[in-house]
């Protein structure tokens, strides 16, 4: 295998439109934080964003901000700031990077969007522990620091089958948030508006699913690395008309690529599934490494986690509860194994790569024998790479490169 091969990745034309959309979103958030009339809520990525939007809050997602710190490779310098005040290097590096950024008075938003000086100051912090316990600790720190309430939903973990009892529990918790949120927003919840927002979230999610499923085509018109960028609106603008319109444009472009047999990578020979978080600070390097090896990372659990088939405008609160509970990360290993197997089949996968993220046990699904079990059941080879989502001190580039190259060699030899 030659060391330096020409990079053959293809730019998605809709990217410019997405960048404009994200820009509008951040400027709107900034304007809300600077106004006396609009309120800002911080929300975990699969928290009750629909409820917050229906109440008129501008919604900021600290996980999105933390991913930006990772992608801009600033997080590794910021994490030690949080370590020094007692937040271990072994816990979520989203949390430590974001708190570290606050302590240093830094945000990548300031460089990307002139006029924005800081992340929008919150009026309320709303979490859902379906992601992990760390989000609650994260918001609790800001609550004390900024003197704003942190409220949220405590979700069950390791759910095998989502039952009516689970849904009722979470739906009750969502309803219990409403009086506090109404008081902070100064707005009475309009159920019709909530239905509309939930319907838009459903529409967004269906389009996002179709976008990701274009990669079932061969060659795949988009890669996991494209997905990590283009999922932005699905994360921060869920429940808005703008997100829906954007994914219509993106989907049309990808369908055009399929019609013209244009792949995300030239000469795709190997199709990979990525299980776990991206290494945000190495997106470009990893993308180029795979494309130089004529391999496409076709699909991932991570990007697919923003598909919520349960959203139903006719039953907004219970369907929100169900959607938040059906999230992959909340589920048992038995469920996760079945889900990944379906994905391997659907996307015609040759090999699976598990990213063992040092600071994110919840998204590292290699630690309880999953690779060995799935390999035995499917015959599809697997590789585990060590790394992290944000803390580049936990990343060994040479080891990653050797592992991935050797894995692609193995898959090619096996064909």
């Amino acid at each position, binding site marked *: *295998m*030659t*060391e*330096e091969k020409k990079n053959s990745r293809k730019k998605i034309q809709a990217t410019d439109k997405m960048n404009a959309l994200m820009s509008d979103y951040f400027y709107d958030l900034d304007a809300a934080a600077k106004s006396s009339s609009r309120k800002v809520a911080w929300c975990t990525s699969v928290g009750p964003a629909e409820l917050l939007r229906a109440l008129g809050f501008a919604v900021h997602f600290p996980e999105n901000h933390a991913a930006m710190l990772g992608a801009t490779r600033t997080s590794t310098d910021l994490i030690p700031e949080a370590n020094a005040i007692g937040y271990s290097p072994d816990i979520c590096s989203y949390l430590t990077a974001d708190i570290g950024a606050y302590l240093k008075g830094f945000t990548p938003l300031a460089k990307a969007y002139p006029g924005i000086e800081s992340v929008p100051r919150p009026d309320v912090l709303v979490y859902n522990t379906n992601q992990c316990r760390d989000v609650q600790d994260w918001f609790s720190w800001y609550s004390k620091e900024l003197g704003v309430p942190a409220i949220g939903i405590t979700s069950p973990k390791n759910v095998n089958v989502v039952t009516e009892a689970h849904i009722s529990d979470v739906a009750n918790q969502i309803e219990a948030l409403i009086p506090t949120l109404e008081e902070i927003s100064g707005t009475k919840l309009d159920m019709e508006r909530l239905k509309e927002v939930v319907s838009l979230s459903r529409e967004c999610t269906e389009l996002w699913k179709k976008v990701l499923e274009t990669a079932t085509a061969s060659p795949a018109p988009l890669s996991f690395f494209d997905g990590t960028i283009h999922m932005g609106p699905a994360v921060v603008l869920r429940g808005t008309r703008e997100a829906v319109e954007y994914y219509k444009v993106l989907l049309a472009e990808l369908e055009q690529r399929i019609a013209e047999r244009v792949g995300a990578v030239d000469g795709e020979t190997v199709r990979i599934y990525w299980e776990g978080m991206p290494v945000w600070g190495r997106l470009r390097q990893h993308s180029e490494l795979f494309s130089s090896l004529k391999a496409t990372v076709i699909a991932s659990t991570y990007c697919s986690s923003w598909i919520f088939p349960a959203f139903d405008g006719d039953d907004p609160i219970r369907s929100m509860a169900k959607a938040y509970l059906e999230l992959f990360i909340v589920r048992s290993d038995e469920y996760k194994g079945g889900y990944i197997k379906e994905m391997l089949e659907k996307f015609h996968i040759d090999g699976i790569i598990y990213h063992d993220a040092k600071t994110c046990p919840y998204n590292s699904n290699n630690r309880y024998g999953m690779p060995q079990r799935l*390999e035995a059941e499917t015959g599809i*080879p*697997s590789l*585990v790479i*060590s790394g992290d989502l944000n803390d580049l001190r*936990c990343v*060994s580039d*040479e*080891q990653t490169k*050797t*592992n991935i*190259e*050797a*894995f692609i*060699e*193995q898959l090619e*030899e*096996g064909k």
Partner: protein
Amino acid sequence: MSQPVFVGLDLGASRVKVAVVDLQGQLLGHAVKKTGTDFTVTGAACLDASLEMAGATRSDIVKAVSTGYGRANVSFITQESRTEIGCLAKGCHHFFPGAITIIDIGGQDNKIIKLNAAGNRSSFKMNRKCAAGTGAFLEEMSLRLDIPLEEMNGLARQSENMIKLGSYCTVFSATEVLESIRNGKQVSDIVKGIFYSVIKRVLEMDSLTDRVVMTGGVVANNPYIVEMTEKMIERKVLLPEYPQLAGAIGAALYAMDPKKEIDVVPHTADPVA
């Protein structure tokens, strides 16, 4: 009399290894040198030493393939590289056809590679981002104990009451070693405990199949580690004649692979010759 030769260069983190083989894949020449700070310089020196041993010159090279961390640093002689995992697999399958598990203990990495009966890789594992169980761990302990690396094998063999180290962190293990020294333990027992620790760290990486092959500089220089491993896994370990050269030989075999198009390497000016 000169003849066409194929060359494999394994530019590892700790040592550079070069193997020269003939058209039948027979080893004609080889060399091993400390990597130092310049892969290119050491690679060139190793190449020339192994060619001299083979009675060949650079103009006799039909094709060369590189591997190891410095595989991109020898473009003066080769434009093709393979991973060390692929080369170890190729080299070991050459010596031991059939299904095998390869345990490679290198200067910085450990690898467990499983091959099926046809010699294709079915899986591989590398150590995590930790030097425990690698040659780097032995080098660290050699420094701490002020014992030359080459004396460790003999010392371990003299042990009558091995001291087991509990930690799998190199730094914590060093602390344990110091504690043993303070407590007046025999150096030979400590060294055997260090060897035991290396083997344990490797064995916890993956399960083994019936036939096990060991390679790498650590086992080449410390045959007692192989004997200890045999006792621990309760089976005979297969060892190539030159365990440290397995990757370089694999690279040379890739160079002569008839499935691959053979490019005669243009012998551009060697920047360091």
